[in-house]
């Protein structure tokens, strides 16, 4: 693997993060006078001045930008308007809860989605295939907030077997995980199926069958490893949709994670917390995509060569 490929990828990732930081800065400054926002329209001019001075809002815009960038790289991202604590701290204490939900969801998604897709492809155009794919389309189409509300209606309101809010025991995980994993597993099932079908049509599979390799071995040793390569590509997309799904699901089930914090911060216009959350999401997604790109180049040299030509 060429060093240039690596450097190019890392450079692109850094560039994207810089773009995102700039995007947040521009959006922040365009959105109006933060001092007015905090104190409201009837604030006296003296206290507004003090606040502007304290936050450097009366400096020229390019100076503000430079200060902002240096602050970001020093990890100083402002304080929450609501309780005056460091925004980084406010966000950081919510991360474990969100991650624990994501791990479980990711595991359930992969355990259901990929085998379902493989089964569908191996039994192409049979009843099993059609039933799986119908379920997948339905899983894709049901919005997760509606699914979550339906689950609460059935399991919490009607049958009273599962708690509808909180995150204290394993029972609290059941409904949020179902809510998030349904659409994800559907995506994986569809994608795995089409990747698998494409591989099964390749000449080397026909060759393997023709020379008498048992079918199970063909699937396990010839088809699956090759089908795994395209599946890796949607990992970046998977993390993105886990984050979005998490934001909605945490709000439906009052899960005390980052997603719920983000929506509360947006509603209260607690901009420091919003920007820390966005940066956190951006950095994790860019890193994930970088890892996927490198892993993909490593798994499939053809792609690596093709991509470095294209860039």
């Amino acid at each position, binding site marked *: 693997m060429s060093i240039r490929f690596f450097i190019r990828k890392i450079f692109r990732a850094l560039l994207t993060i810089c773009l995102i930081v700039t995007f947040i800065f521009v959006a922040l400054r365009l959105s109006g006078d933060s001092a007015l926002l905090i104190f409201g329209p009837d604030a006296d001019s003296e206290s507004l001045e003090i606040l502007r001075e304290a936050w450097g809002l009366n400096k020229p815009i390019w100076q503000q930008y430079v200060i902002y960038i240096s602050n970001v790289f020093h990890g100083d991202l402002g304080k929450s308007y609501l309780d005056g604590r460091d925004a980084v701290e406010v966000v950081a204490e919510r991360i474990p809860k969100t991650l624990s939900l994501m791990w479980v969801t990711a595991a359930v998604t992969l355990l259901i989605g990929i085998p379902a897709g493989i089964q569908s492809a191996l039994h192409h155009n049979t009843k099993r295939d059609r039933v799986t794919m119908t379920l997948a389309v339905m899983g894709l*189409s049901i919005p997760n907030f509606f699914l979550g509300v339906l689950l609460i209606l059935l399991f919490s309101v009607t049958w009273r077997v599962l708690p509808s809010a909180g995150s204290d025991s394993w029972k609290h995980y059941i409904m949020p995980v179902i809510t998030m994993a349904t659409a994800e597993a559907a995506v994986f099932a569809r994608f795995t199926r089409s990747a698998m079908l494409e591989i099964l049509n390749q000449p080397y599979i026909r060759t393997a069958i023709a020379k008498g390799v048992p079918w199970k071995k063909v699937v396990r040793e010839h088809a699956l490893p090759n089908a795994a390569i395209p599946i890796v590509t949607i990992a970046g997309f998977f993390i993105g949709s886990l984050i979005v799904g998490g934001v909605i699901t945490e709000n439906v089930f009052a899960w005390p994670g980052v997603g719920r914090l983000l929506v509360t911060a947006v509603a209260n216009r607690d901009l420091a917390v919003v920007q820390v959350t966005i940066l956190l999401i951006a950095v994790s997604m860019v890193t994930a995509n970088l890892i996927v790109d490198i892993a993909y180049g490593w798994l499939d040299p053809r792609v690596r060569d093709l991509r470095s030509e294209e860039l």
Partner: protein
Amino acid sequence: MTDKLEVELTHSEEKPQENFQIRIHRFFGRYPPIVIIAALWLLFMIFVAVFATLISPYDFTSIDLRTRLQAPVWMEGGDWNHLFGTDDLGRDVLSRLIFSIRMSLLIAFLGTVIGAILGTALGFLAAHFRGWVDDVVMAGIDFQASLPFFIISLTLLAFFGNNLVLFIGLMGIYGWERYARITRGLTLSAITHGYAIAVNTLGATPIRVYLRHILPNISSALIVNMTLNFPGTVILESSLSFLGIGVQPPLTSLGNMLGFGRDYLTTAWWITVFPGVAIFLATLSMSILGDWVRDRLDPTLM
């Protein structure tokens, strides 16, 4: 003589019947029943959205506190005045549902059209000018891919406050990058094809080459992307509205209705379930149609 005539008669009677059966068979082979049902359902929803003012039994904002949280007609406590019951302010759920469908479909439609035009135009620009224009568009695509659009729109709505124009604009930006990528890629290869070079040599302006000659040739991929984009826009709009950050009262959309109805889940499930089912059926039918269109127009796309 008579025998012969009879034979001929039965023969000519059988033939059209056979043709008819074959034709039916072929028709359903080409248009599977599920696709027809999905299309009819979408047409029905569009009909409801267009004629909302004529169909809806009440004004969707009219409040009647005497009939708060009344159940749908088939349940105990329901009556024919409010088929789908009423909400916490005594507003007719059916009327609100009709107007919500109108709002959600309108936003999704506008969003899809804006996104398609924007993305296609940027794709053409990138392919035509190459160089730094191409770099800027590609950087934009990278940026878009690095953050889920849901998060971007959440941020922008947080910073700029909410209004309907900004919201529809955001829905339009959603998905532009896929159109741009498809257009750019296909145009780059189309430019080298004989027909584009020929038209170009004949003295056609670049705009004419792109819009009249290349666009029709790449349109199937773009149409497929539009049908796949539409359900995504519906879900994006309703998710944001559900969280209270999208369409604001007194306007109503499907997600907005669901979000507010959530507080009455224990006493009045109908406020949440009807709009939820409406979203589900809309996105489901659109996905079924989208898959079908993709299989017919462009089997190579995933």
